[in-house]
């Protein structure tokens, strides 16, 4: 065993982009490899859960945890790594806010399974097979972790020390975080590592007097490259999104998607987007306002794209708000 600090990295419910982002450090990855002893990183090295379970509590110095929590396995590893790690970092938008997996909170498990295994146009499932938590085969029982109704963020499962936002976090942000960890100059626990302004601060486009008579979707308009996208009626979440990415999407004529999450002090990114975008509507009567809003389909999807599980309401109502049958604890069985 070396004296170097021990690093673990894990992916729960995520796309793997965060892992790639670490590799995106390019040659600096060697510094990471040099500075840390990697004790657990299933994506790139062969470790078993048993290896982690065998470690003493607090044996891992830093754990970079990416991905949302959407099943029992994710939760189990979250608890396990929390116990084994001195510093637990929610790495990336999924662990921080729920991100893309969290969009499942606009529906529920049953509806999702129905769609995926039976109704989606690309599904061919002649045997009407559906994953079961337990399948008995000649060789023995096969088990799948229980799939949850509601996707959660890492912090909703275990206490988290630091949050590193982004989908994925920009190499620069990762570098800052790694350097902070290596040098021991960490901000107070619970902090989000990043800027306390919003994307507009880094966006070079000229901002005008936000007033719009209609919204455009990206295919409906060729935007002026120098003017704020919102001023041109294109949805951009940059106004309510933490800075740190150097306005990567607006720089290429795409509205900010909001992956860095809410600004410092904000409880709910979607609420602030409602406030900001709502304030731009240039109309005084309800009818006019509604007509303008008709040009902005799926506002909840836009506003909560990366942080629905982290938001105040966390998910869509189950069963449309009427008296709710108790959600049965066993999942994935028909």
């Amino acid at each position, binding site marked *: 065993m070396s004296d170097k600090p021990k690093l673990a990295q894990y992916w729960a419910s995520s796309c793997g982009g965060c892992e790639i982002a670490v590799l995106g450090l390019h040659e600096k990855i060697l510094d990471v490899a040099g500075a840390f002893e990697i004790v657990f990183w299933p994506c790139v090295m062969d470790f078993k859960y048993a290896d982690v379970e065998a470690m003493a509590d607090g044996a891992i110095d830093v754990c970079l945890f990416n991905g949302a*929590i959407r099943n*029992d396995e994710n*939760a*189990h590893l979250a*608890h396990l790594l*929390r*116990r084994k790690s001195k510093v637990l970092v929610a790495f990336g938008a999924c662990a921080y806010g729920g991100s893309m997996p969290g969009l499942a909170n*606009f529906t529920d498990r049953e509806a999702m399974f129905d769609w995926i295994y039976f109704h989606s146009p690309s599904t061919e499932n002649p045997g009407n097979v559906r994953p079961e938590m337990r399948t008995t085969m000649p060789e023995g029982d096969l088990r799948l972790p*229980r799939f*949850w*109704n*509601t996707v*959660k963020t890492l912090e909703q*499962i*275990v206490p988290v020390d630091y949050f590193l936002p982004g989908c994925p976090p920009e190499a620069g942000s990762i570098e800052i975080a790694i350097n902070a960890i290596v040098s021991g100059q960490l901000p107070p626990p619970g902090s989000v590592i990043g800027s306390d302004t919003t994307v507009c601060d880094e966006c070079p486009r000229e901002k005008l007097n936000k007033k719009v008579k209609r919204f455009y979707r990206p295919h409906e308009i060729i935007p002026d490259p120098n003017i704020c996208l919102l001023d041109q009626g294109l949805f951009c979440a940059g106004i309510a999104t933490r800075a740190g990415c150097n306005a990567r999407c607006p720089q290429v004529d795409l509205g900010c998607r909001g992956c860095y999450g809410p600004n410092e002090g*904000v*409880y*709910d990114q*979607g*609420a*602030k987007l*409602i*406030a900001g*975008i*709502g*304030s731009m*509507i240039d*109309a*005084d009567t*309800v009818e006019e*306002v*509604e007509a303008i*809003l008709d040009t902005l389909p*799926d*506002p*909840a*999807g836009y*506003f909560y794209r990366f942080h629905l599980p982290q*938001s*105040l*309401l*966390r*998910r*869509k*109502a*189950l069963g*449309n*708000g*009427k*008296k*709710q049958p108790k*959600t049965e*604890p066993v999942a994935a069985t028909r």
Partner: protein
Amino acid sequence: MSQNGTFKPVLVGFLCNWCSYRAADLAGTSRMGYPATLRDIRIMCTGRLDPTFVLRALQQGADGVLVMGCHPGQCHYQEGNYKAIRRFALLKRVLRQMGLEDARVQLHWASAAQGVLFAQTVAQMTEQIKALGPLDWPRHWPDEDPFARIALAMQEDAHE
């Protein structure tokens, strides 16, 4: 909340200082009875209504949220209520997508002279929410984490 099977809704009100709050005052001085369901918060203008407030109230267990301001054209700050209309329309769309019934969150107007209208509005909304039943929003994210209990027990052990 629910006592002996009778559901008594809890509504959080956001009233503007100049019109609707005074309408509520007038309902009081004129002794116009209405159900004791509304718990009101004074803001200077409906234009101050941060959508976060509405979401917070729902998240914290309110069965409904009632926002009231000056009639359009009568805002004491000229046009704050128009801004409220715009944001509220967008908020409602988002809440609809979140599966919230329309009656749960409402925007109404009452001038300082409309104590009767204020009392009627509260009474009417109370009836609507009674018909819908309790919201109890947090039940929508039941705790599904089977390891939480174990984790907590272990944390407690560590403290002992």
